[in-house]
C-alpha cells in the first residue's frame, strides 16, 4: 500500500511531463473509448473483457509490428511509405514459395528478409544519396507494389499444412463465451514490441535514434561522435524488417497472398504512431505509445461495428482523432517554444576595476 501511495504521485508527475503529455493524451483517449464502450455495449456480458483485447490483438498484431518499425523512422524525423506494399509483396512471396514447395522455415526467413532489403534500399537512398524519405520510400512503395503484380495478379491461397498449423496455433483460456486465446501473431507482436522498447530506451543506438530527430539533420549527433549515418540507415532497415514480419503475420491471418492487400496500410501505421504521441517532425515518440495508438485504432473499429455503422465510418473517425492529436501536438509545441528563453539585451556594461 505504501509503495502504491508513493508510486501514484510519481506516475502523476510523469504523465504531466511535457515529454509524455502526448502519450497521456493517447491513454486518455483509450480510456474514454473503453468507458464509453463499457457503458453502451454492456448487455448480457461486459464489453471490457479479455476476449475484447484478445480479438483486438488477433486483428491488429500485424499493424502493431508495422507501427513499431514506423516509430523508429518517425522519431528520426523520417517516414516510410513502403510498408503496406511490402506487406503485400511478402504475402505473395510466401504464398508462391510455399506452393513451389520451399521448406517453411526458409520461406519465413525469406519473407522477413524481403522486408529488410526494401528497408536497406530506402535507408541508403536517404542517407547516402540525400533523397527525401518521402520520395525514397514512395519509390520503394511503387517498386514493391509493381513486383507484387510480377509475382501474381491473382490471389494465391495457401494450403501448406505446416503453415496452417502455425496460423491456428493458440493458447486457450476461459470457458464458453468468455473464452479467449493467445495466438502466434500476438506473441510475435509482443516480442517485437519488447525488443524495440529495450533498443530505443536502453542502448546507445536507441538514444542516437532520438538524437537524430533533434531537428538539425543529425549535426549534433555527429558532433557528439555518435554514429549518425549508419543509425539513419538502420532505422529504415528496422522498419523494413518489421514490414517483413508484419507481412508474415498478415499472411497467417488471411492464409493467402494477394497483390492488392495492404493498400493504405502504411497510412494506418503512421496514423497509429501519431495517435500514439510521436512527433512527425522527429525527436519524440514511444513504441509503447504507438502500441496504445494501435489499440485506439482497433477499438474505434470495434465501436463502429457495435454501432452498426458502415465500416468507412472508421476512416472518418480516425481522421477526426488524428486531427485532434495533431492539434494537441501543435499546442504543446507552441507552448514549448514560448517557454524557450529569449536572448536578453546585454545591459550597459558597467566599468569593472581594471
Amino acid at each position: 500500500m505504501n509503495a502504491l501511495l508513493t508510486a501514484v504521485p510519481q506516475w502523476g508527475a510523469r504523465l504531466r511531463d511535457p515529454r509524455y503529455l502526448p502519450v497521456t493524451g493517447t491513454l486518455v483517449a483509450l480510456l474514454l473509448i473503453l468507458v464509453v464502450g463499457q457503458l453502451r455495449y454492456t448487455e448480457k456480458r461486459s464489453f471490457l473483457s479479455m476476449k475484447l483485447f484478445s480479438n483486438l490483438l488477433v486483428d491488429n498484431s500485424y499493424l502493431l509490428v508495422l507501427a513499431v518499425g514506423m516509430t523508429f523512422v518517425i522519431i528520426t524525423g523520417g517516414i516510410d511509405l513502403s510498408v503496406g506494399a511490402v506487406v503485400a509483396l511478402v504475402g505473395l512471396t510466401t504464398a508462391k514459395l510455399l506452393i513451389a514447395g520451399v521448406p517453411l522455415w526458409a520461406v519465413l526467413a525469406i519473407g522477413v528478409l524481403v522486408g529488410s532489403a526494401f528497408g536497406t534500399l530506402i535507408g541508403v537512398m536517404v542517407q547516402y544519396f540525400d533523397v527525401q524519405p518521402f520520395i525514397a520510400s514512395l519509390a520503394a512503395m511503387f517498386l514493391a507494389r509493381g513486383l507484387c503484380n510480377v509475382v501474381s495478379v491473382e490471389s494465391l491461397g495457401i494450403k501448406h499444412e505446416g503453415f496452417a498449423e502455425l496460423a491456428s496455433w493458440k493458447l486457450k483460456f476461459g470457458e464458453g463465451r468468455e473464452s479467449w486465446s493467445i495466438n502466434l501473431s500476438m506473441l510475435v507482436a509482443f516480442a517485437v514490441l519488447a525488443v524495440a522498447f529495450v533498443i530505443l530506451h536502453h542502448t546507445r543506438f536507441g538514444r542516437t535514434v532520438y538524437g537524430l530527430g533533434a531537428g538539425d539533420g543529425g549535426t549534433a549527433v555527429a558532433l557528439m561522435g555518435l554514429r549518425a549515418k549508419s543509425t539513419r540507415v538502420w532505422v529504415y532497415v528496422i522498419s523494413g524488417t518489421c514490414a517483413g514480419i508484419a507481412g508474415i503475420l498478415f499472411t497467417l491471418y488471411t492464409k493467402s497472398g494477394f497483390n492488392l492487400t495492404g493498400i493504405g496500410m502504411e497510412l494506418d501505421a503512421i496514423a497509429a504512431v501519431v495517435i500514439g504521441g510521436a512527433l512527425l517532425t522527429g525527436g519524440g515518440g514511444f513504441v509503447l505509445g504507438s502500441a496504445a495508438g494501435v489499440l485506439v485504432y482497433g477499438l474505434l473499429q470495434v465501436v463502429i461495428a457495435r454501432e452498426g455503422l458502415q465500416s468507412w465510418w472508421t476512416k472518418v473517425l480516425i481522421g477526426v482523432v488524428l486531427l485532434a492529436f495533431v492539434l494537441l501536438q501543435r499546442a504543446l509545441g507552441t507552448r514549448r517554444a514560448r517557454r524557450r528563453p529569449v536572448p536578453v539585451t546585454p545591459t550597459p556594461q558597467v566599468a569593472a576595476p581594471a
Partner: protein
Amino acid sequence: MTDQKDPGQAPVVEMRGITIEFPGVKALDGVDLTIRPGEVHALMGENGAGKSTLIKILTGVYQPGAGAIRVAGEDVRFGSTADSQAAGISTVYQEVNLCPNLSVAENIMLGHEVRRGPFVDWSATRRAATKHLARLGLDLDPASILDSHSLAVQQLCAIARAMVVRPRVLILDEPTSSLDKAEVAELFRVVRGLRDEGVAILFVSHFLDQVYEISDRMTILRNGRLVGEHRTAELSRMDLVSAMVGRSGEILADVGERAARVAAAEHDRAEPVLSAQGLGRPGSAAPFDLDLFEGEIVGMAGLLGSGRTELARLLFGADKPSEGALAVRGDTRAPSPLVSLRRGVVYSSEDRKKEGIIGDLTVRENIALAIQAGRGALRKVPAKELDAVVAKYIEALQIHPANPDALVRNLSGGNQQKVLLARWLATGPKVLILDEPTRGIDVGAKAEIQRLVTELADQGLSVLFISSELEEVLRLSERVVVLRDRHVAGVIHNGPDVTVETVLETIAERAAS
C-alpha cells in the same frame, strides 16, 4: 616567439606558419598561435579575419596547406575532428550543438555512457553526469530534458560534455553571444575554474569587455594574417581595436573637404525626415534615439556584431521594434517593410547575395522588384515605363555591362551593388539605409558608390550609411553614430578635428555609466 618569456610553461598547442587557401582567397597566411596550460587565450579579429578558419584547422575540420601543429611538444596532423579530439582538444560551438529532446545526462554522456553489456546503465550514467556537472559547480537533475533549461545552462552542459574526455585544450567559440550578463558571469566562473585546473582555454568573442575580463593573453588576426600576440594586461583597448581594424588612426586627406561641406549644411534643421525615439528590441538593439534630416548623411560605425545591422533592420521594420516610436515625415505607423517602402524608407541589406539581389534574374527584373512591390502584384509596371527607368539607372549609376538582360549573378560585386541601389532609388525614396554597400568590392567601384551617395544627399535624400571602413564613414558622414555591444555609445559630429582615432576611442572606451 614569446615562449622565452614564460620558461615555466610549456605550450600545449603550438601552431606555426599556418596557411590555407580556398578557391580565390588566402584565408590564412602564416599564422602562429600558442596556447599554454592554465591560461585563457583570446583569439581576436573582426569577422572574416580568419578566426573560425584557424579554429577549424585546430579541430581538424580543415587541413592547412602549409604550417605545423604541435600538441604537447609532438608534431600532429589532424585528418579529421576525431584526430583532434583524440589529441585532447574539445570544442564548444557558438550554437549549442546538443540534442534538445534528450536528457541532460544523455547530452553529457552519450558516447561515453556507462554500459552493462550492450545496455546503458542509466543510474550509473546519471551519476557520472552529475559528477561532471558538479565539477562545473552545477546542480541539475540529470534526467531533465535539455530543452527545459535556459540557453546558458545548455551552454554549460555543452562544456560539461566537452570536459568528459578530460581535454587539455577547450575551445569556446563565441560562447556568450546569446547569454545575458548574469549568465556570462556564471560561464566565466566555470571557465576560471577549469583554467585553475590547468586546462588551456581558447576563447573567441567579439565582446571586448568580456575578453578583457576573462583572458590572460590574446592573439590578434586581421585579414588572415597574424597581427600580434599580447598579454591582455599589457594591451590597451585602443591598441587592440586599432590592431583589429588595421588603422593606426592616420588622418584622411579629404575629410576636411567633406567636413567643410557639412558645416555649410548646418541649416534648415526644423523637421527631421526620420525620427526614432527609444526604438529598441530585446536581443537586437538597446533603445536608441535618432533623427535624420533632409540631405544628411549619417554614418554608423562599430565593430562587426555591435548591432549596426540590427539597428538598421529596426528602422526599416524588417525586425519589429518592441518598444519606442518611429516617425517618418510625421507618419507614425509601426514600421514594416511594406509600410517603409510606401513612405519612402528603403534598406539595402548587408548580405547582398542572400537578402539583396536575385542572381538568376536579369538586371531589369532586379531593378523592377521594388517598384512592383510598391504597386502590388496585380498592377504590372508597364514594360515601356520599366525600360525607361532601367535605362536611366544603368546610365546614371554606370552599371556595367549596360545590358538590362544580363543575369545579375554574372556581374561584379560593385555592379551588383549598383543594381541593388538602382532598385531602391527607382522607388523614389526619401531615406536610404545602406548597410555595408561597399563590402567586398574593388577600390574603384567603392569610390563610385561613395560619389553616388554624396550626390544623392545633395539632391535631398537622407542617408544612413553603415560601414566597417571608418575612413569611408568619416569621409561621407555629417554625424557618426557609434555602436558598441548593441548600444549607441556616442554620436560624433564630424568636423576637421574628428579623426579615425576619435571614432576608435569611442568604440573602445568603457561605458562608465
